[in-house]
């Protein structure tokens, strides 16, 4: 059931625009708090709450993430939370991955055909549930631990290696960083998410950044990946600028509120809240999926 499957959002539809702005504000608070672009909530939210078709929700979400990512990155750069070298390496790989992911989405959509739109939607929703549950599990598991050994990319026996002096990390595997960026970028292009929901736990667990550094660095990478994804989806006609801007008006205000609280929260507490929100989003999405699938 899609209200906007084939039509752009009408500027005269004030209640819809206000609803989109309010939804954007709520997601913007999470962006400032946790360094996630919010695509993992925006895309299923646009589909489930506003009845917008998946391709339009995905393309417009990426355009929205460009704005919210830019605001968040600027804010966290001032707070010295962005690791520039990791941002460029991971972001460069994510840009390539985002294009590959968007191409995969086109193939997938064409493969299902117009007669099987329902099946396509169910598959996309299922992928989202799996992704969110995996992220929540990763973060929950890590929240109670203290670091006893070097992070994965320092232990990975695969050179060449790079140093990340801004965060005091030496000998990080460059191929490992590139593979991480490529994988997150591919998911970004495929699912219309910026990738922050995965990047933040990966930057903590795999690269070895602190939660606050991971939040800032993730936003920089998300910004680069979402620019690339927006161009690709714009060429395919999947971006609705009015929709994206309505979300953005609310979210850029929300980002400020979230970043304010981010600076005042303890790192472990930040991780726990993040895991709870991701888990709740997964449960809501899974419940909707079960309602559709069960007779």
């Amino acid at each position, binding site marked *: 059931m899609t209200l906007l499957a084939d039509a752009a959002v009408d500027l005269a539809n004030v209640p819809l625009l206000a609803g989109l702005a309010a939804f954007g504000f709520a997601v913007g608070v999470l962006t400032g708090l946790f360094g996630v672009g919010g695509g993992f909530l925006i895309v299923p939210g646009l589909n489930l709450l506003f009845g917008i078709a998946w391709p339009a929700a995905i393309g417009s979400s990426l*355009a*929205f993430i*460009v*704005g*919210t*990512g*830019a*605001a*968040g990155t*600027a*804010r966290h750069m*001032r*707070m*010295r939370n962005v690791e520039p070298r990791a941002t460029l390496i991971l972001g460069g790989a994510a840009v390539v991955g985002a294009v590959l992911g968007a191409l995969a989405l086109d193939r997938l959509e064409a493969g299902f055909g117009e007669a099987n739109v329902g099946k396509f939607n169910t598959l996309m929703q299922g992928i989202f549930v799996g992704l969110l549950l995996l992220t929540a599990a990763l973060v929950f598991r890590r929240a109670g631990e203290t670091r006893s050994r070097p992070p994965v990319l320092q232990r990975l026996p695969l050179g060449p290696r790079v140093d990340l002096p801004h965060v005091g990390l030496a000998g990080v595997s460059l191929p490992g960083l590139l593979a991480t960026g490529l994988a997150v970028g591919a998911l970004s292009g495929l699912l219309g998410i910026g990738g922050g929901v995965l990047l933040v736990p990966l930057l903590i667990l795999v690269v070895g950044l602190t939660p606050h550094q991971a939040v800032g660095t993730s936003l920089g990478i998300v910004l680069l990946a979402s*620019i690339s994804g*927006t*161009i690709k989806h*714009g*060429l395919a006609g999947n*971006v609705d*600028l009015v929709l*994206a*801007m309505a979300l*953005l*008006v609310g979210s*850029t*205000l929300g*980002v*400020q509120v979230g970043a304010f609280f981010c600076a005042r929260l303890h790192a472990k507490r930040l991780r726990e809240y993040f895991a709870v929100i991701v888990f709740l989003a997964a449960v809501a999405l899974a419940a909707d999926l079960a309602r559709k699938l069960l007779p």
Partner: protein
Amino acid sequence: MAKALEIASYVLLPLLWGLAVEFVFELLRRRRSDVTPEEDVA
């Protein structure tokens, strides 16, 4: 050409909006606290 402008607007309008709002909020923060960027970070 029109298509290129349309695609550019998908990226540039959200980007500029995000940066402009952040700039305005930063100005407001500085006015309220009247501190330098270094002091703000500390």
